[in-house]
């Protein structure tokens, strides 16, 4: 275990006294605790007799917690397992292994009826505001449906609640009879947010909620999500590949690579003092809208592409692209260790 030189002596002592905590346990204020979560998708071959020839190890053993009222950002490149993580948490997929605890209740073993009750507290906002709304349903029915499913409101009360929700997300409350195609992308995303809010959830998985939107509209939706969080004391798992947006919106940030979380820390720590080489490369690759800064910046240009999650590299999964890799990296999978208070990383040679 190593500490970064930036910590004060007090912090160090406090940390050593507390001892090493696992990334999934954390403090007592946790809304969600995920440990050793795995989600593998079987790869089959054959037309009549399907036999399994392997598996896509989309999520391959991850640990983290989410504290009540915070936003945990989840970043990483395409295909690293972000969406699968979100879906496995909400039990939209049945996890291959591991545990997901919400308010102390283990979700992976819950029966259908109990899970339906839990689902009221956990909602999802999807990336594609075009595909995620049923084009044949009116906005009133789209937002009202979860109210009916959970027996929260019907008839006039439902209509009123829908109108209230439209107002909350900044849309005209008289649009209940409209269809999704009559709205712009940003407005559709607002409808998706209103639907998620309808059941008064505590926890929302927002899966790339702004990626499909125009730059000028993205900020409108980010602000909306922030305002709603404050107003309703929401907890977010915010999935995105835009590191600048994640820095803006998150309290803590987790970085994924090929099915694993490689680093997890408070937002400033992660961006100012990244420990994992992959995080360092990722951060250095993000363009900054300022030519004076850009001219001075040093980029870490990674070679090659991300390997396949069907056959991930042995040892550290990043070793095929890592400029710091040594012999041990291809042999031993580095443990996910708390190197500094609330700062976890999985690397044999963390730090600058």
């Amino acid at each position, binding site marked *: 275990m190593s500490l970064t030189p930036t910590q004060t002596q007090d912090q160090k002592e406090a940390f050593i006294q507390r001892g090493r905590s696992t990334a999934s346990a954390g403090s007592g204020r946790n809304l969600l605790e995920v440990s050793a979560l795995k989600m593998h998708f079987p790869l089959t071959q054959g037309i009549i007799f399907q036999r399994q020839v392997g598996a896509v190890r989309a999520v391959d053993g991850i640990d983290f917690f989410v504290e009540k009222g915070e936003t945990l950002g989840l970043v990483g*490149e*395409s295909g690293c397992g972000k969406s699968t993580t979100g879906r496995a948490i909400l039990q939209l997929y049945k996890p291959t292994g591991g545990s997901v605890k919400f308010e102390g209740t283990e979700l992976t073993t819950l029966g259908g009826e109990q899970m339906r009750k839990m689902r009221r507290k956990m909602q999802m906002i999807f990336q594609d505001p075009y595909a995620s709304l049923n084009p044949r349903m009116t906005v009133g029915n789209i937002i009202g449906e979860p109210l009916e499913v959970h027996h929260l409101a019907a008839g006039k009360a439902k209509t009123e609640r829908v109108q209230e929700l439209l107002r909350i997300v*900044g*849309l*005209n409350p008289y*649009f209940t009879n*409209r269809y999704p195609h*009559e*709205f*712009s992308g*940003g*407005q559709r995303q607002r409808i998706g947010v209103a639907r998620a809010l309808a059941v008064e959830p505590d926890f929302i998985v927002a899966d790339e909620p702004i990626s499909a939107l*125009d*730059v*000028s*509209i*993205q*900020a*409108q939706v*980010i*602000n909306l999500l*922030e305002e709603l969080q404050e107003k309703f004391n929401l907890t977010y798992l915010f999935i995105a*590949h835009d*590191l*600048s*947006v994640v*820095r*803006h*919106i998150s309290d803590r940030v987790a970085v994924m690579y090929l099915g694993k979380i490689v680093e997890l820390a408070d937002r*400033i720590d992660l*961006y100012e003092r990244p420990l994992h080489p992959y995080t360092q*490369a*990722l*951060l*250095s*690759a*993000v*363009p*900054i*809208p*300022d*030519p*004076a*800064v*850009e*001219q001075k*910046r040093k*980029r870490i*240009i*990674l*070679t*090659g*592409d*991300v390997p396949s999650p069907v056959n991930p590299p042995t040892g550290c999964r990043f070793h095929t692209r890592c400029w710091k890799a040594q012999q041990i990296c291809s042999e031993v999978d580095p443990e996910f260790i708390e190197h500094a208070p609330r700062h976890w990383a999985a690397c044999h040679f963390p730090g600058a």
Partner: protein
Amino acid sequence: MPELLEVKDLKTQFFTRDGVVRAVDGVSFELAAGETLGIVGESGCGKSVTALSLMRLIPQPPGKITQGSIMFDGQDVLKMDDDEVRGIRGNNIAMIFQDPMTSLNPVLTISRQITEALELHLKMDRAEARKRTVELLELVNIPSAKKRLDDYPHQFSGGMRQRVMIAMALSCNPKLILADEPTTALDVTIQAQILDLLKNLAREFRTAFILITHDLGVVAGMTQRIHVMYGGKIVEKADTNELFANPKMPYTWGLLRSIPRLDENRKAKLLPIEGLPPDLIAPPPGCRFEPRCQYRRDICREKEPELIGIPNAKADHEARCWGTQAGGWLVDSDWHRDVGDLAALDAIKAEVADLPPDVKRVEAADDDKKKGN
């Protein structure tokens, strides 16, 4: 220095069932040999249509270049016959698209895609072309290029396909490369690889290039000059350092204020551009940004401002805004502090809650019909 490219008052329109889309509405700019230009703006503002117009690749119908001239190396592209245009495409001007799959032929091997162009434009024989192809693929850092010559596009990753596109673009030593969102579909670490490659190649071969993107970060590090487009028009032109240090158009301010920065420490609230982008079938009569601009005054709705030089800025810095032009009310504004008229801002926010303009237009037409009955 004589210009390589001189575009004057270009207008490209699409004649659709709903009306005429004024996709590019009077765009003028120049580019010198070896120069790098960025064109930025949000979705639908006319960036791609501008690039496609330069190559005469606008699908007709419904599209048509209705006005203007495009002088490339002293010749007007719009007056060329089809053979001459084909000669220019690929040979003098090459294009890199956002999605390489749309421009790579899926049934041809990687080598065939490139050798074909070499044989056609540079009159090489097969063997020579194949040799040059290996060189080109090595130049764009395709690992073990020789072995992968006979692979098909689907066997390559997105980043590698984009490298092949760049190799194809370079194959005939073009004087100008048009790169339309070349990295938008790629992951950030792959984007860094590709941008690094493009930058080095442009420097090495002194190729002029136009980089089209919605990402202000990408153009900041890649270009010498930047044009900001909004609603089919260029609204601000400046050299790259000047544009970021001293932006002069409220739309550019809005863009800069609405994106969080990676190196920003304060968790300050973002200031979005409220409202929605203009409908290019019935654009606002005055300044196209007026419906979303919290600095607007009456004149903005009545008369369209010209794109002209402005006070308090470098000589070649131009903006299309009544407020920042000589005598205007924004000449001395500090855009970091002055966020505009808050009442106007609230009015524009209410607009976000309302229907987008195209739906309203259809409804108005329906109402007219009803009245007619």
